[in-house]
């Protein structure tokens, strides 16, 4: 039986947003506030915008309150620059940090339920890397809504856009970008519920499709974060920037990958291997458990690599233990109650009495679709694609460089979301109508191929193989041989995937088909991560090469990588913007290439 | 279990246990409330029909003879289960919804105990069957207490934005909270109080008792009718069918109010 794939309908709109997470909603709200009659369509893979990944962000978002005498925007900019290991673009850093507080007020005035201090003002707390006076002491810079800041942003963004008449298409996939002559006209969308393919033509198309955490075996990311946006861009011949910059959190709870926060170690938790030895002493004799995130992550990963990890049979994932048994009850109850409850809920362990399984967990993708400081997508030659924008985790402007500071990501969503919207509003004013002349062909070929395959592999098995090879060889640690092994495996998996049959024949809510498509995206993203990591023969931020363990000035650039055909990349470079340094303003010397040492 | 006997072998217990795990005890209590409410309204309609035979005392006595045999008396005693349960649980709900009490799991735990005490007391009276209490005195106390409870409820509920009809149902419930269990208890102090047409008619010739009966009649029927209408609104989604249900229920109840009033006033 053969299913034919054709476009059921063509819809026109002013703005099409691929995604409905925090970035998408902030952007949409601004467009609708400025131009109330604009037709804005936002797409989600999930069953409702509120189910997007942003809803899980917990900690908070950094923003310097102008009323705070101790803090300043310049300090925030410095912390971000230093955190990025000198690879963030300073024009973007400046813009975001300067507009941060205004955006907090935007959220507050539209009903976000921020936690309050006794005076009724917004409460603030401190996070790793938030400092005053260029690293002198820590500072309270993050506003938050208890432990559900992301959810607060989502509720507010969804409410505002709903109020202003956005159209959501839920549970759908953007499967093909319509690009021609450096212009973007919209995309093809697979509506899962109806099992239909439609074409949406727009004056402006905005990528806000989030992260790619599913590339790795243990991740804090949601199930839908399969790097679709990056894969779509690659397929259309656009480059991806810095894909090798992937952040790992040292202690994710094995199984669901949920974060077991840093506090576990700061209150005295001890990491132990299979033989129950406290191993941190071998890696950081002085700091031990309190060493920086990346060092701890690497230590755990080394133990696992050298066979001193423990294999969890239920999830088939090797891990180490964190020992909290010796801590007094008071610490358990007062200082780490949430994390304790996570262990109870997800692994059924009582941290007071039992050892708890943790391992480094993928957390954030700094790399993404390259854009300029206005969120306009650029090609390999750094020319902008008319009518195409990117914002949020899928984009790389680049605010985070090679290492993101906690609380800077959701800040990026709301600040860049607004900035991009301003640009889009200008663009749709000038644009007479959506571009009609862009043909559609790729998706039908692709989906017919999926439905026509007859091989006997299991998609799940291929996906698991990919995730474990990426975790073993290209996560916290990277070496030339490891990456090459991974590339080989990916090539093999790609071939097997191409032959894998799909059992379900109907198109409505065919999750298998979705997973098949996602697997292609995951493989593509994995591949560019590998290729870029292979090419960067140094260590920078979250990218750590065992064989080249130090940062080198020769690599002070962003990687650009295009890959239309799987496995045949084209590599390029983009300069790091150092405009703040070059402008020579107050304390400009702090924005030179500096050492990242805490 | 070590003994090999487990309560869960009894099908009803199993069912309750499962429900308590999937929805919680208050949910079961709500279903029981609903069922007891429907049982009560059906009983009241039947009750009014039976009482209407009082117009012809001999006829009434003949009919009532049937109710004096052992099985019906037992069933009558069992009727106290929905009565006391609905009253106490209704009281709990009023405390929860109107008086802001959030400790109602405690009340829920006490409910079986108090009900059992009531049942026992009622049973004892029914078996002894020779208590003499002045109707006027008894009903003065009970009515005064009920009016007082209703007054408290009115004062508390005044500020709620909910509809008047809803408030009236809750107020009638507060009024009935003592009235109904007391009515039942009173009718069993001595078999003749509840069964002997001459005794009943003699009592009902008093204007105060007439007033009490009318208040009882109207509050019970209003409360019950509103309850049934709301149940139908929970499950019937078509507005037209809803309107039809409401109209039918109102007609039936109006009819019963009419016979009830005729009976009380004309006796």
């Amino acid at each position, binding site marked *: 039986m053969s299913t034919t794939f054709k476009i059921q309908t063509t819809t026109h709109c002013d703005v099409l947003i691929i995604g409905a997470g925090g970035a998408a909603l902030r952007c949409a709200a601004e467009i609708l506030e400025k131009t109330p009659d604009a037709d804005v369509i936002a797409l989600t893979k999930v*069953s409702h915008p509120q189910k997007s990944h942003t809803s899980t962000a917990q900690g908070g978002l950094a923003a310097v309150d102008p009323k705070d005498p101790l803090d300043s925007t310049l300090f925030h900019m410095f912390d971000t620059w230093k955190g990025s290991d000198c690879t963030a673009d300073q024009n973007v850093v400046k813009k975001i940090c300067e507009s941060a507080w205004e955006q907090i007020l935007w959220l507050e005035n539209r009903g976000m339920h921020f936690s309050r201090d006794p005076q*009724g003002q917004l409460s603030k707390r401190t996070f790793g890397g938030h400092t005053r006076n260029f690293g002198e002491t820590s500072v309270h810079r993050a506003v938050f809504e*208890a432990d*559900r800041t992301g959810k607060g942003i989502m509720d507010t963004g969804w409410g505002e856009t709903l109020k202003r008449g956005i159209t959501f298409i839920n549970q759908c996939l953007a499967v093909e970008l319509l690009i021609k002559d450096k212009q973007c006209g919209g995309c093809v969308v697979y509506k899962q519920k109806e099992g239909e393919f439609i074409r949406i033509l727009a004056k402006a198309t905005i990528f806000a499709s989030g992260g790619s955490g599913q590339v790795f075996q243990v991740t804090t990311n949601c199930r839908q974060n399969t790097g679709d946006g990056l894969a779509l861009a690659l397929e259309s011949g656009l480059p991806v920037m810095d894909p090798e910059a992937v952040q790992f959190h040292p202690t994710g709870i094995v199984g*669901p990958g949920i974060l077991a926060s840093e506090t576990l170690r700061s209150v005295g938790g001890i990491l132990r291997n299979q033989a129950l030895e406290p191993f941190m002493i071998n890696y950081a004799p002085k700091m031990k458990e309190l060493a920086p995130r990346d060092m701890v992550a690497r230590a755990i990963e080394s133990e696992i690599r050298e066979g001193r990890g423990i294999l969890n049979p239920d*999830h088939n994932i090797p891990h180490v233990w964190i020992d909290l048994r010796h801590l007094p009850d008071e610490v358990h109850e007062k200082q780490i109650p949430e994390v304790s409850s996570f262990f109870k*809920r997800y692994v059924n362990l009582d941290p007071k009495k039992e050892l708890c399984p943790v391992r480094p967990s993928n957390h954030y993708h700094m790399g993404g679709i390259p854009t300029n400081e206005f969120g306009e997508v650029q090609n390999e030659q750094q020319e902008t694609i008319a009518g195409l924008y990117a914002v949020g985790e899928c984009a790389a402007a680049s605010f985070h460089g090679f290492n993101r500071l906690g609380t800077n990501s959701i800040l990026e969503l709301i600040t860049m979301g607004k900035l991009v919207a301003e640009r889009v509003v200008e663009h749709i004013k000038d644009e007479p109508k959506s571009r009609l002349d862009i043909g559609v062909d790729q998706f039908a070929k692709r989906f017919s191929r999926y439905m026509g395959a007859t091989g006997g592999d*299991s998609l799940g098995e291929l996906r698991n193989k990919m995730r474990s090879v990426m975790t073993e060889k290209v996560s916290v640690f990277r070496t030339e041989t490891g990456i090459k092994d991974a590339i080989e495996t990916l090539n093999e998996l790609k071939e097997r995937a191409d032959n894998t049959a799909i*059992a379900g024949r*109907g198109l409505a809510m065919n999750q298998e088909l979705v997973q098949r498509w996602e697997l292609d995206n995951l493989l593509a993203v994995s591949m560019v991560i590998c290729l870029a990591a292979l090419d960067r023969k140094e260590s920078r931020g979250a990218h750590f090469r065992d064989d080249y363990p130090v940062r080198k000035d020769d690599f002070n650039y962003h990687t650009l990588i295009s890959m239309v055909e799987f496995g045949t990349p084209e590599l390029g470079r983009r300069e790091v913007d150092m405009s703040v340094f070059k402008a020579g303003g107050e304390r400009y010397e702090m924005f030179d290439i500096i050492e990242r040492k805490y | 279990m070590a003994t090999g006997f487990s309560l869960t072998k009894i099908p009803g217990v199993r069912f309750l246990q499962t429900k308590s795990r999937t929805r919680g005890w208050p949910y079961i209590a709500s279903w029981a409330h609903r069922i007891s409410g429907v049982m009560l309204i059906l009983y009241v309609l039947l009750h009014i029909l039976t009482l209407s035979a009082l117009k012809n005392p001999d006829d009434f006595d003949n009919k009532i003879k049937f109710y004096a045999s052992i099985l019906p008396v037992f069933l009558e005693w069992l009727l106290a289960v929905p009565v006391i349960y609905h009253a106490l649980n209704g009281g709990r709900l009023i405390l929860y919804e109107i008086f802001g009490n959030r400790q109602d799991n405690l009340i829920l735990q006490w409910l079986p105990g108090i009900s059992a005490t009531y049942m026992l007391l009622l049973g004892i009276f029914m078996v002894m069957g020779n208590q003499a209490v002045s109707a006027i005195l008894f009903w003065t106390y009970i009515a005064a207490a009920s009016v007082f409870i209703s007054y408290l409820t009115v004062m508390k509920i005044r500020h709620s934005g909910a509809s008047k009809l809803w408030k009236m149902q809750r107020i009638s419930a507060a009024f009935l909270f003592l009235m109904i269990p007391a009515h039942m208890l009173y009718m069993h102090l001595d078999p003749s109080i509840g069964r002997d047409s001459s005794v009943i008619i003699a009592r009902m010739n008093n204007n105060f008792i007439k007033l009490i009966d009318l208040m009882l009649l109207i509050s019970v029927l209003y409360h019950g009718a509103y309850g049934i209408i709301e149940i139908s609104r929970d499950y019937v989604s078509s507005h037209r069918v809803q309107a039809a249900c409401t109209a039918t229920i109102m007609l039936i109840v109006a009819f019963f109010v009419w016979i009830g009033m005729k009976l009380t006033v004309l006796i």
Partner: protein
Amino acid sequence: MTSTYDITLNVHRYDPDKERKWIQTYQLEAGRIMRFVDVLRKINDTDDSTLAWGSSCEHGQCGTCSMKINGKPLLSCELLVENAVKYFGTTTFTVEPLDVAPVVRDLVVDTEKAYERIDRVKPYIINPVLQDEDEMEHQISPETLERYVDATRCINCFCCVSACISSHENFLGPNAMLAAIVRIMDPREQEKQERLDCLYSADGVYRCHSSQACSFVCPKEIDVAHFIALAKEGAL
């Protein structure tokens, strides 16, 4: 300690192409700390790739993975096999989609339909209190916030709606009631009347009988019934 369980799932399935409903039994070995989402994924990976089910965050934050297991509406990403065996006292589980909206396929329901009820109460600020100074945050004392902050924690998983004694058709539902209540209690919002009208409409408080199943099943442990009772009392 047992390290694995042999479990049986009786899954209520629906195929929209053939409009067919049936119950399919899967038997598999599951580790003690596998969650139900992991179990379903295992079924997909090894046994039946066509079984459709929904999840997103997979750590109890988004409310996508709700379903009924042995009759209890819950988040399947939070239920460990071991805990389920203990709680229900069996290794056989009935798995059904939530009954709050039409089923799309197998365990996936049409969430948009369910959300229509929330849209009706306008879950946003319509008319904010203006600030004296421009560009200032509103001041809300922690005590004021404390009164309603729990109501803001809802993730719209619809478990409460499924559990409620009232029908799912005529009632706004516990979570939509919460959404309305939030903006009534939020001092920044001036437009209260519209939400009050929703609360006291025929689809509002009158459909709630304080059965408290909402509070009982809420995975976020929100005392939903408490807020609805406040609305009845007029004490918001």
